[in-house]
């Protein structure tokens, strides 16, 4: 609330101050700052949060601008309605560019977005019968107030109001469930899926947000100028929008503001030498990448931290609950019933067959261990159970629910959580944010309730925070809650990943070598923790090489070798099985 009052007051002061500006050039500069802020704020969601590089924002700018141009000139639609339609149209274009992102990643995706921008540029430049080409479209209807077109000052006011609204709405969205989900995409898509974030849906959403704000900005420019031509739409505009975010500080709520203010002013100062402008933009882009990876916002933030220490250490509320309890979902069916069955799973990668008719039955409330030599197919089995890879043949059932074909995030939402062999934490996020991401699939607030900061979103966030604190206490991580996960000692990072998996309130917890890299004491502590988790009613399947641990805590051991199950049963029984010994130690060489 304090934030809201603060920004409203700031914008009001700015609006008031603007009314004293007589110089048309200054007013226009102010208006352009607003316009670019809109572009940058959306782009920040896409680039700074979701980590997707779009090099074709000029295309979306054009979508907005030409929509209002055509609607108001050709179809006589009112300026306000046209502005709304422009937002929708650019949103649709956003979906369009997001589609390839579902299939390609990395440099190819960046190149596709670039191509999109260029195609739009070509289209508006060469399709002169519709878009007017370089001649452009004249007599675009400006926005009106009580039937009278906006004055430049009114445009500034309107721009400021839009910026205010955009900032407040996006802030609502980004500080909670959605912001965390976007950040998780940037950090690690596979882990994001595994904690229950529907990766593709969120990627598309990020593209759409960036598209709508950019289209809105384009429409405003077209309406304010009452003119648009193809010279506006070029590759340099796309780069400029990228630069706004990178220079201002990508992933920071105030980065876009800093970026648009500073760069528009620099641009205005350089306006006399057009050739220099692009050169400077290129140089600033490189400067930001090399010297200022967190942008102006990062720079100011670290300065602020230096002069104002102690502010950053937010007080941690210690829940003084003596008997920490895990939040769990209501278990269907009683104890000691079958929770998950896998029937004749098969998987082949070319000639390598990591799974050959593997069947598995996991009992509720037990700790199951999966052991076997390197390359036996253990990780592949866990990957199949969690939907990360699809089995070639076979079926997996969670209670009565066939999950063989389900998506990763869906399986997580149904109560199967996992950790990874090589740790896939969201390193830059705090421990608490990591664990909160585990709660993602358990939270009920949707896009609009988050965007408008409705009570439901606030309630859900508070509830999730409470549960997460309980989990952090259960796993003895509370004192590290505000530390970034990547900076913790390795043993603690392992525990954070476990806590994150617990946060999805799983029925089944799959752990891929949870003790890898731990020292003997940490391993023993882990064993105790796992037993406590089981005692809370959570079923565990762990892959592990620390045999002491396996033998001490497992109720049931499955041995894989060569993609096949070669033994299973109680730990002692498996330990003395001659086939297991041979798989591990090999037979002796007669030749030697």
């Amino acid at each position, binding site marked *: 609330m304090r934030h809201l009052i603060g920004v409203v007051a700031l914008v009001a002061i700015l609006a008031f101050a603007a009314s004293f500006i007589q110089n048309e050039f200054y007013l226009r500069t102010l208006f352009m700052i607003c316009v670019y802020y809109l572009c940058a704020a959306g782009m920040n969601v896409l680039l700074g949060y979701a980590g997707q590089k779009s090099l074709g924002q000029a295309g979306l700018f054009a979508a907005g601008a030409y929509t209002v141009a055509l609607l108001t000139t050709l179809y006589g639609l009112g300026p306000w309605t046209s502005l709304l339609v422009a937002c929708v149209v650019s949103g649709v274009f956003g979906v369009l560019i997001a589609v390839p992102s579902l299939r390609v990643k990395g440099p190819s995706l960046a190149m596709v977005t670039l191509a999109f921008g260029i195609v739009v540029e070509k289209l508006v430049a060469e399709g002169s019968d519709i878009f007017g080409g370089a001649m452009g479209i004249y007599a675009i209807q400006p926005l009106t107030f009580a039937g009278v077109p906006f004055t430049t000052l009114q445009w500034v006011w309107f721009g400021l109001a839009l910026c205010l609204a955009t900032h407040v709405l996006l802030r609502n969205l980004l500080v909670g469930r959605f912001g965390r989900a976007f950040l998780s995409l940037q950090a690690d898509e596979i882990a994001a899926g595994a904690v229950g974030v529907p990766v593709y849906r969120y990627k598309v959403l990020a593209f759409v947000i960036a598209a709508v704000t950019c289209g809105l900005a384009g429409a405003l420019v077209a309406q304010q100028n009452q003119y648009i031509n193809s010279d506006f739409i070029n590759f340099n505009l796309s780069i400029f929008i990228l630069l706004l975010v990178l220079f201002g500080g990508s992933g920071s709520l105030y980065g876009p503001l800093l970026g648009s203010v500073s760069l528009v002013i620099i641009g205005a100062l350089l306006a006399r030498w057009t050739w220099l402008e692009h*050169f400077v933009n290129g140089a600033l*882009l*490189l400067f930001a990448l090399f010297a200022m990876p967190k942008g102006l916002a990062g720079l100011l933030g670290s300065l602020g931290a230096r002069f104002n220490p102690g502010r950053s250490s937010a007080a941690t509320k210690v829940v003084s609950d003596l008997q920490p309890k895990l939040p769990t979902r209501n278990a269907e069916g009683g104890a000691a019933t079958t929770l998950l069955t896998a029937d004749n799973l098969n998987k082949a990668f070319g000639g390598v067959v990591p799974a050959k008719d593997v069947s598995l039955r996991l009992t509720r409330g037990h700790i199951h261990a999966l052991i076997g030599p390197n390359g036996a197919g253990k990780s592949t089995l866990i990957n199949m159970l969690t939907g990360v890879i699809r089995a070639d043949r076979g079926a997996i059932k969670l209670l009565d629910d066939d999950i063989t074909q389900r998506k990763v995030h869906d399986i997580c939402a149904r109560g199967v959580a996992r950790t990874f062999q090589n740790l896939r934490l969201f390193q830059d996020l705090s421990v608490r944010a990591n664990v909160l991401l585990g709660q993602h699939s358990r939270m009920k607030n949707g896009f609009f309730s988050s965007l408008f900061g409705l009570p439901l979103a606030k309630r859900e966030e508070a509830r999730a925070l409470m549960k997460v604190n309980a989990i952090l206490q259960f796993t003895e991580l509370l004192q590290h809650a505000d530390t970034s996960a990547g900076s913790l000692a390795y043993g603690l990072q392992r525990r954070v990943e476990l806590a994150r998996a617990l946060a999805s309130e799983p029925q089944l917890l799959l752990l891929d070598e949870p003790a890898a890299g731990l020292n003997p004491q940490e391993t023993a502590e882990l064993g105790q923790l796992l037993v406590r988790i089981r005692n809370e009613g959570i079923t565990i399947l762990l892959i592990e090489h620390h045999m002491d641990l396996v033998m001490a805590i497992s109720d049931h051991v499955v041995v894989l070798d060569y993609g096949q199950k070669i033994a299973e049963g109680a730990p002692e029984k498996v330990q003395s099985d001659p086939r297991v010994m041979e798989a591990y130690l090999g037979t002796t060489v007669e030749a030697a």
Partner: protein
Amino acid sequence: MLATYIQTLVSGLAIGGVYALIALSFSITFTTTKTMNFAQGEFISFGAFIGVAALLLLSGLAGGLTAIPGEAAAGWRYPAAALIATVVAGVMGVLIFLLAVRPFAGKRGMNWVMSTIGFGVILQSIGLTIWGPAPVMVPSPLGDGVLRIAGAGVRPQELIVLASAIAIMVIFDFVMRRTRIGKAMMAVAHSPQTASLMGINVNTVMIGAFALSSGLAGLAGVLIAPIASASLFMGLGFALKAFSGAIIGGLTNPRGCIYGGFILGVLESSVGLWQAQWKEIVVFSLIILVLAFRPQGLFGHASIDKV
């Protein structure tokens, strides 16, 4: 009618040859370093202008012409200019690798995409101050007359482009498959770590890959200049279409990239025969289709992420 088809086919193959060269240049750095130069378009444009500058220098003409007289490109001058452009672009490639790519390669965030773009923006504005925005007409070494083949009008430069592109690709293929250095490049592409175990200096190979890739881009600029005119804005379009060709063929497969480039060139000129302004749209839709159904490209292998 037949003549029109032949004409379309030849110019499609010629332009496709250029796409293939540039597609190959993307593939070379992508396979060996998992990065590529997003300023490749500027390298193409620069290649063309360096070629122009070399032509003027070699024939003792003054700069600042908007059309280069035919005799400037005659005889040995055009090949010499092409060589100079290739070498200069290659050196620029080494610089961009060392300055813009290597500091970010292999780290999260793909910042090399943006740093190479930043270099491209700077290059373009430098180019604009030196050469200005106006396109320059560049003559073909074989003149600008039209050859008649089976009634079809074919420009001699198209044949030069096609022949040079094919020759370069055959040499490249031979080098990759038959020579020690080619095998080393393939080894680095397959796995830099294992390649280093063979005693291959991986770093040198990567620098070499960027030099080669940028050199090809520069050469492509010189080859295409007599057909499209040299302009600082021409590169991006060529680079993008060539990249589309690489995607169609499969970025990780050099031969696939070459096929992809040719397919795209012929397709583009056939669409142009029907509706010239639809060219970009058709090409772009094709990429989307390929990406949707075969993200690894028509000739590429699917890769498996290890979890």
